[in-house]
């Protein structure tokens, strides 16, 4: 009997323990279930992403930008790799002074020049001593050679990141023609101006993608599979620009600007038959590799973007129009050329105030007679003159494959008064771009066809090449008119004011132009723009060239500035293009 209560008690005790344990297990199970629900259901997606990010890798593969080649296949612009050098100041530690001293010698032009070395050392030291950061960029655009030398020093805490860059083997040559590669608002490479801007899309290519799984050491896990979309490289552009001609043009232009005291100038050389632009240079210019150091105003190409009053070189277009319309012939005599021509309240005078009664049309061009060409303008009438200017492409873009082309519009047809008609005849009160003039005169040179100027000849991909299409030539004046006009220009070159500059034995068709500069509603009394446009040989032209000089100080006449510059360039072009002397 005595045992019973004890048994009962122990049973009760046991039951309580079991209940307690069961309750505890139930509680733990509940907590576990809640926790599992939290991790699996609520945080499941995030954790899954986190896990995936640890073993999967995805990388955008950049598409290399295409190169730009000269007409002989050599490089104008080659895409290469530069390096961004960075430092981990924590790893550099207390060695910042010695590391800065070592690196500075690579980042200055002359390591012996203490004036440049000391500031660079100080700059680097400041960067390397930064606290609380583990990545500091210390130098951008470092080339392979310098990177290799720094790498060889095995400095702890110094690293390299590659970045695509453009290398210009001919330095700043053809800068305004080529344009440059800058960054857009998202930091991506974009071509601006010239060829880089116009052909940005084909040059850029399309980036690719590589995705897959990687182990802890970064090696790919092949069983996990990979996803790969290959990058499509940008195409290469084969241009018509001839390095030798471009070099000659730039050298001579630079000498000419200095010699004649001009504030700037441009030269364009084009094949008048095919429209291939062989050279185009302007000064002042910029270095495309260091474009950020130059003023924005230097980036645009004056030959296609800036307009100017052409002056007397415009007379060849008016005379060609007169010949084609049949209102004059080369032998037509001017019956209003015995003195200044009164138009409305204005008097039109010749450039030297010398008048030639009964002058022939050929001599109007030879003597650059303003009254004589106004006579042609009057014979044509405003309507026909407008139509012919339209045919010559004046007032419309030439369609050249360069970014930034502009074309000042012609005054609307029907709004030309007698003064407009007369002044436009000798290239005043009308604005053109250099490229418009070259294309229009090329039509005279090639027998009457308006062509589209082309800088790029073909685009090249991996194992394929395609010619760049352009609009077919359009006949705008008859062959006879073109020939007669050519002959007049030959006479102008032989007997005109610039005859002293010509090269004996070589026939050239050319015309000078001295134009006043419009400034705030009137003409600048002190400065003029000078130009000379011509082609050679006249019967089978290999090139048409326009030279313009801004405000030369050595002489007020183009015959003494632009013309000799034109001939000094032509002197080098003749043997190079196989043009033989007749003597």
């Amino acid at each position, binding site marked *: 009997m005595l045992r019973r209560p004890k048994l009962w008690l122990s049973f009760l005790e046991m039951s309580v323990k079991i209940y307690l344990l069961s309750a505890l297990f139930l509680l733990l199970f509940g907590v576990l279930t809640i926790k599992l629900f939290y991790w699996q259901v609520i945080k499941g997606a995030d954790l899954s992403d986190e896990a995936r990010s640890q073993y999967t890798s995805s990388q955008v593969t950049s598409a290399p930008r295409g190169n730009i080649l000269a007409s002989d296949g050599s490089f104008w612009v*080659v895409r290469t790799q530069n390096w961004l050098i960075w430092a981990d100041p924590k790893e550099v530690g207390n060695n910042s002074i010695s590391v800065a001293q070592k690196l500075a010698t690579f980042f200055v032009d002359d390591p012996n020049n203490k004036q440049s070395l000391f500031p660079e050392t100080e700059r680097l030291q400041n960067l390397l001593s930064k606290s609380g950061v583990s990545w500091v960029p210390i130098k951008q655009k470092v*080339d*392979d050679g310098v990177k290799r030398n720094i790498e060889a020093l095995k400095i702890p805490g110094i690293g390299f990141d590659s970045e695509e860059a453009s290398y210009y083997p001919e*330095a700043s040559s053809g800068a305004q023609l080529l344009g440059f590669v800058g960054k857009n608002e998202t930091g991506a490479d974009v071509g601006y101006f010239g060829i880089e801007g116009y052909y940005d899309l084909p040059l850029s290519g399309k980036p690719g993608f590589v995705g897959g799984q990687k*182990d802890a*050491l970064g*090696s790919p896990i*092949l069983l996990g599979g990979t996803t790969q979309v290959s990058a499509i490289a940008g195409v290469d552009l084969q241009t018509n620009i001839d390095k030798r001609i471009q*070099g000659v043009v730039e050298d001579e232009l630079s000498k000419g600007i200095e010699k004649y005291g001009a504030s700037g100038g441009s030269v364009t050389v084009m094949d008048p038959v095919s429209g291939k632009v062989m050279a185009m240079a302007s000064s002042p210019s910029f270095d495309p590799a260091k474009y950020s150091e130059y003023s924005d105003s230097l980036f645009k190409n004056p030959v296609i973007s800036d307009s100017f009053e052409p002056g007397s070189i415009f007379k060849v277009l008016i005379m060609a129009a007169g010949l084609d319309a049949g209102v004059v012939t080369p032998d037509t005599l001017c019956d209003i050329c015995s003195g200044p021509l009164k138009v409305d309240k204005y008097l039109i005078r010749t450039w030297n105030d010398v008048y030639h009664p009964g002058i022939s049309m050929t001599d109007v061009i030879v003597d650059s007679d303003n009254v004589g060409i106004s006579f042609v303008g009057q014979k044509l009438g405003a309507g026909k003159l407008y139509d012919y200017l339209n045919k010559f492409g004046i007032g419309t873009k030439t369609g050249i494959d360069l970014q930034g082309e502009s074309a000042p519009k012609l005054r609307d047809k029907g709004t030309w008064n007698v003064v407009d008609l007369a002044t436009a005849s000798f290239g005043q009160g009308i604005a053109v771009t250099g490229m418009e003039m070259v294309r229009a005169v090329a039509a005279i040179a090639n027998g009457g066809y308006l062509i589209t100027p082309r800088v790029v000849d073909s685009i090249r991909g991996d194992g394929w090449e395609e010619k760049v299409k352009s609009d077919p030539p359009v006949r705008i004046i008859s062959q006879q008119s073109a020939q007669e006009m050519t002959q007049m220009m030959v006479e102008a070159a032989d007997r005109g004011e610039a005859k002293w500059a010509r090269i004996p034995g070589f026939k050239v068709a050319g015309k000078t132009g001295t134009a006043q500069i419009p400034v705030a509603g009137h003409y600048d009394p002190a400065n003029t723009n000078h130009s000379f446009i011509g082609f050679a040989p006249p019967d089978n032209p290999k090139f048409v060239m326009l030279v313009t000089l801004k405000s030369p100080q050595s002489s007020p006449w183009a015959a003494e500035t632009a013309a000799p510059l034109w001939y000094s360039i032509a002197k080098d072009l003749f043997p190079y293009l196989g043009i*033989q002397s007749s003597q």
Partner: protein
Amino acid sequence: MKNLRKYILIVVCGVLATSSTFMTVETATSGVEVSNLQKEETQLSDEKRYLQDLLVKTMSLSQLQERSSGLGYVKPVTLIYVAPPEAVAKLP
């Protein structure tokens, strides 16, 4: 007969287990090999780019001109055109 089936089953299972292990090892080492090859490819393309840059710099026309003037080559100032002799009738 029953034993033979048993042995065949054991052998097949053994082969499958071995090949599975072998394949896992093989793919793991291949991953390392692929990684090494990728590094080598990067190194070679860097080297190629470096040599190409060097070639482009050497072929630069402006550098060639500088070099040629240093070597004493000068641009011709006057060109003389030589005409072929004209045919002249022989004297009788």
